[in-house]
């Protein structure tokens, strides 16, 4: 449905997006996972034709973005990373304003607003000023404002930043129900649990580049072992880490006093005895299934969240 080919964008000397290509299928939830500054927002801004790309091609259903920006904008709903609402207006007034910008007939728009307010569970509070809302409620109105013109594609830029787990779950349910009704969704985040729960396919971005993409299973295959041993030591110096690395030849990384080793249960006895022979004191051992965070670590050598 959406094709992106060789997309690039620089701000002055900062190259925010470097030659990325991906494809989004109709009806799927596509995730863009990456740390802060990876270029996710920049990519979404270009997809929604708010920002001109330096180079590359974006098309929806075969229509190229160039010269069709206004048509694109009616096909796409954008949920910006910031709460992009007028705090001094009520939720209802906000939605009415944003809806009118799409030229929707007012009677239809009002019906759609009521429907959307019910979907996000804020119908009762519709007349309250947005500034009186909690963070989670604002986030939900922020999403609602992008739905009024029935977009085919919804772009969500970190829609759960700074809210409690309960509100986050509510937002997930809203997204899932929209997706069930056939809406294609592009979801960016730096929380790997979110893409794991929601997304059919995922692109991992770092430094403006896509370093891996595919379904969750496809991504897991990139890591040789499907499990990870995580050992926390009392103290763990860099030289001890080097010794451990040369003693056990599987891939591992260090994170203060903790070491992450790509290995399974079978390798556990060997690892423990090696640690003992190097006389580093073990505080805690955990065996974990591989998740996207480990894949990110594996691919970039750094944590998703710094």
């Amino acid at each position, binding site marked *: 449905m959406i094709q992106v080919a060789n997309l690039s964008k620089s701000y002055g000397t900062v190259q925010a997006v470097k030659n990325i290509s991906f494809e989004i299928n109709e009806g799927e939830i596509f995730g863009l996972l990456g740390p802060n500054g990876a270029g996710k927002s920049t990519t979404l801004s270009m997809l929604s*034709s708010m920002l001109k790309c330096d180079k590359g091609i974006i098309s929806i259903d075969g229509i190229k973005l160039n010269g069709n920006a206004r048509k694109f904008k009616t096909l796409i709903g954008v949920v910006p990373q910031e709460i992009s609402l007028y705090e*001094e207006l009520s939720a209802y007034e906000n939605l009415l304003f944003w809806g009118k*910008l799409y030229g929707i007939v007012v009677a239809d728009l009002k019906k759609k607003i009521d429907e959307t307010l019910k979907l996000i569970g804020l119908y009762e509070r519709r007349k309250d000023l947005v500034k009186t809302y909690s963070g989670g409620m604002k986030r939900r109105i922020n999403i609602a404002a992008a739905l009024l013109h029935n977009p085919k594609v919804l772009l969500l830029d970190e829609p759960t930043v700074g809210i409690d787990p309960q509100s986050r779950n509510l937002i997930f349910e809203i997204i899932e129900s929209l997706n069930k009704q056939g809406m294609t969704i592009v979801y960016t985040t730096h929380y790997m649990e979110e893409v794991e729960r929601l997304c059919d396919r995922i692109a991992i971005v770092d430094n403006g580049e896509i370093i891996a993409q595919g379904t969750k299973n496809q991504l897991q295959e990139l890591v040789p072992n499907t499990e990870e041993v995580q050992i926390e030591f009392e103290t763990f110096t860099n030289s001890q880490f080097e010794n451990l690395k040369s003693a056990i030849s599987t891939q591992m990384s260090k994170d203060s006093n903790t070491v992450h080793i790509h290995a399974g249960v079978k390798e556990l006895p060997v690892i423990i005895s090696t640690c003992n022979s190097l006389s580093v004191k073990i505080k805690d051992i955990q065996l974990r299934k591989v998740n996207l965070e480990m894949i990110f670590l594996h691919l970039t050598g750094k944590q998703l969240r710094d």
Partner: protein
Amino acid sequence: MIKTILLKDLKLYFSDRKGILLTFLLPIILITLFAFSFGGVGRKKRVPKPTTLLVVDKDSSQASINFIHKVHSLPMMNLKQMTEEKALDKVKKGKNVGVLLFNKGFQEAVMNGSPIPVELQFDAAREIQTRMLLSVVQESMQRAFGKTQVNSNLQVKTTPVIKLTDNKPNPGLVQAVSGTAIMMLLFSIAAIGGSLLDEKEAGTLKRLLSSPIKPLHILFGKMSTAMIISVLQLAGMFVFAWLAFGLPIFMDTLTLALLILCISFAVSSFGIFLVSVVKTRQQLQGMSSIIIILMSAIGGSMIPIYMMPDFIKKVAVFSVNYWGIEGFFDIFWRQLTVVDILPKMGILIGMGLLMTLLSVPLFKRNIISLD
């Protein structure tokens, strides 16, 4: 689309009590202060430079021609001779302070030694300048006549062309209202322009840009908001001046309304121009205060323009304040017709168009690029 944006902006504007306070209450306080203190304006002892004097020679005798030539050759005087009609028109339109008339019978009076029929007609709003002029005229006449004539016959008769009468407002009041109203207007318009930068920072600009509206509609929506607020503010100030000080605002309501519209247009485009030049709120705050205070100072919002030195009068024409204040003086003091004031309105609209045209590319580059 502009209307949708405009209505939203107005709603936002009036939800902000501080904004309303700034728009209406503060100027009212200032106008009141100035209206009271301007009473003393004319009595201050200031010595401005002698002004060029218009001269009408109605006697056209050998004596009057010789005499005018003699006075003109004195270093302190610069005479400009023209018809009575033309000269009085210049005084009425505020271009000159007064006109010196050599009435019929000048030659006879000089020969007979009877009182000399010389008359100074002047604009009573410009009292100090007139007094100055009068003393220079008397002194130069004495010099021109030399010691051969009797000094007591050299009393110059004075007649005001524009009189301080009951049906005319106090010029100090006109100055206080128009000067203050325009200056305060500039501040509130800069604030409305600034809300565009707030939208950029808050992210609502992003959402506006993600909708299918034309980006320039965002700019013109703000400009329309500014325009409506300024019409309200200016009208409000004049209504206040009417209620509190009896300024006769219904004397020529149509012209007053037109002038208010022209000033509002010029000022709103100034607002969007200002906001298109800067990148952040802080930059706007710093820049707008300096520009507004400067423009108000040279444009006659703080000190009446006729009290300013010549070089400031020359740059004053680049300010919106100057044309607005002069326009209000034309209406209330000089009581000119709408046709006489049209050129000033034209200049205000021209200034507005120029600033609007300049804002468009700047807005595209600085505001909506999101870079």
